[in-house]
């Protein structure tokens, strides 16, 4: 029975792939020479944010999402993204909106307000874009998971959870009991909730990014804005809760006088260290996730590129290798999703606990 189902699913997937491929081949045949495969544009279109959410097997259809923007005069405008995604301009009240097509302002593809003189003004854009919706979905999933486990404990008491909840518990135990607790010691209950939240939020966003169709497919942790917020929160927690001794270590460290008195070399290095820590957090997560997505997209694009350069048959041949490699990459990305979420949590834990040094503890360590 299982084998039959597997075979049917495989056949359906293969059929859809063949159909999609035939369509895209036909599509490129119909188009003139200048609409060749543009790898760079395709890659950044897939990795970037958008005002709609793609639907599988369609180039034009998008799930419309709400656009929320403050125009130049400060008025609030809300409308569905389907009004502008096809390249139209949309008149909402006395403001006209469209998606910018010019490279000039540096916001190509973003929502702009067309002013009276024809110039473009980038409004305060609070739209629920694809990435924002992705973030909200990830947050909702995390709440759902945590609450389901909470409900289990409420109902079943001391019974060990099974299945997905059991797996969740193992992960929580691994992150909290085996990682946060040994590092933070008795401060673990205070900062554990933040670190656990960060871990599960990042993990969910990472994994959602690997699923190609809605509600996945948004490149969340491969977007600098997302990792920046996460890193900034860790930065804020680290420095706002830092002890007196932590600040003394930075501005007046235990080094020979010559290194800190006339020219404050060590304090400068230490101070830079404060800034590089969150920067490293931000870039590490961003680059790892972006890289993974990019490799998969490039591997798939190879099929189109080869098909265009040589023949459809070569493209089909490449497809076998490309799909096999991208499956491997996606499996690897699943691992990386977990590792990066864990590394972010681990480093945040270490940074926060390092900001909580006390004179006495420090002395014990140095002795």
């Amino acid at each position, binding site marked *: 029975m299982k084998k039959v189902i597997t075979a049917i699913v495989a056949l359906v997937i293969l059929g859809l792939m063949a159909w999609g491929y035939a369509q895209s081949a036909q599509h490129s045949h119909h188009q003139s020479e200048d609409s060749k495969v543009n790898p760079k544009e395709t890659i950044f279109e897939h990795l970037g944010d958008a005002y709609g959410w793609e639907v599988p097997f369609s180039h034009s259809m998008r799930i419309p999402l709400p656009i929320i923007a403050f125009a130049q005069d400060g008025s609030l405008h809300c409308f569905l993204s389907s009004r502008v995604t096809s390249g139209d301009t949309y008149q909402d009240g006395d403001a006209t909106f469209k998606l910018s097509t010019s490279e000039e302002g540096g916001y190509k593809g973003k929502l702009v307000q067309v002013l009276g003189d024809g110039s473009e003004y980038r409004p305060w854009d609070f739209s629920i874009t694809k990435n924002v919706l992705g973030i909200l979905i990830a947050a909702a999933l995390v*709440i759902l998971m945590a609450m389901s486990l909470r409900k289990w404990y409420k109902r079943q008491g001391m019974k060990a959870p099974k299945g997905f909840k059991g797996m969740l518990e193992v992960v929580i135990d691994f992150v909290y009991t085996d990682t946060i607790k040994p590092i933070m010691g008795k401060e673990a209950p205070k900062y554990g909730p933040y670190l656990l939240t960060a871990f599960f939020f990042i993990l969910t966003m990472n994994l959602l990014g690997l699923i190609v169709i809605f509600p996945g497919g948004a490149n969340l942790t491969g977007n600098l804005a997302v990792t920046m917020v*996460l890193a900034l929160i860790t930065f804020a927690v680290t420095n706002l809760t830092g002890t007196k001794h932590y600040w003394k270590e930075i501005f007046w460290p235990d080094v020979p006088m010559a290194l800190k008195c006339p020219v404050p070399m060590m304090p400068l290095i230490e101070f830079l260290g404060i800034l590089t820590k969150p920067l490293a957090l931000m870039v590490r997560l961003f680059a790892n996730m972006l890289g993974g997505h990019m490799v998969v997209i490039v591997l798939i694009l190879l099929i189109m590129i080869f098909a265009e350069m040589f023949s459809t048959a070569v493209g089909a041949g490449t497809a076998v290798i490309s799909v096999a490699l991208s499956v491997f990459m996606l499996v690897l990305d699943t691992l990386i999703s977990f590792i990066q979420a864990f590394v972010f949590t681990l480093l945040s834990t270490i940074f926060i606990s390092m900001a909580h040094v006390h004179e006495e503890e420090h002395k014990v360590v140095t002795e």
Partner: protein
Amino acid sequence: MELFKPEFGLVFWMFLAFACLYFILAKWAWPFIIKSMDERATLIDKGVAYAQEAKSHLDNAKAEADALLADARKQQADILRDAAKMKTEIIEQAKADAALEAKKVTDAAQVSIEQARKESEHQLRQDVGAYALQIAEQVIRRNMQDDKAQRDLVQKMLSEVESKN
């Protein structure tokens, strides 16, 4: 390259989403989950310790039972011995009591026999006296007739008395 240029809207929503997520989970989920997990861990630890203790108890149980059995046997033997002793004592006591009682009874019997003998002796004496008087009366009466006859009568009377006694 918009990927490297953080969008304000995205930053805003991300921060809002994370803040909400944190407050919800930090208030209702994580502390409760961690507490429950810790509680279960302690329960399991206690359970293991209890099981080990129970096992060691079980291992000792046979020895304890043997000791108990031996003790019981000893007590049983003691009780049996005491009972036997008590039995002989009771029998001895009963024998002694019986002997005493028997002696009393024989003494009383002897006394009454003695009395009866004395009474009968007294009676005999009176009877003999009475017979003697009767004989003397008869003798005196015959004496009036014949000496010989008197003597014969006395002889006859005496032999009668003799044969009676």
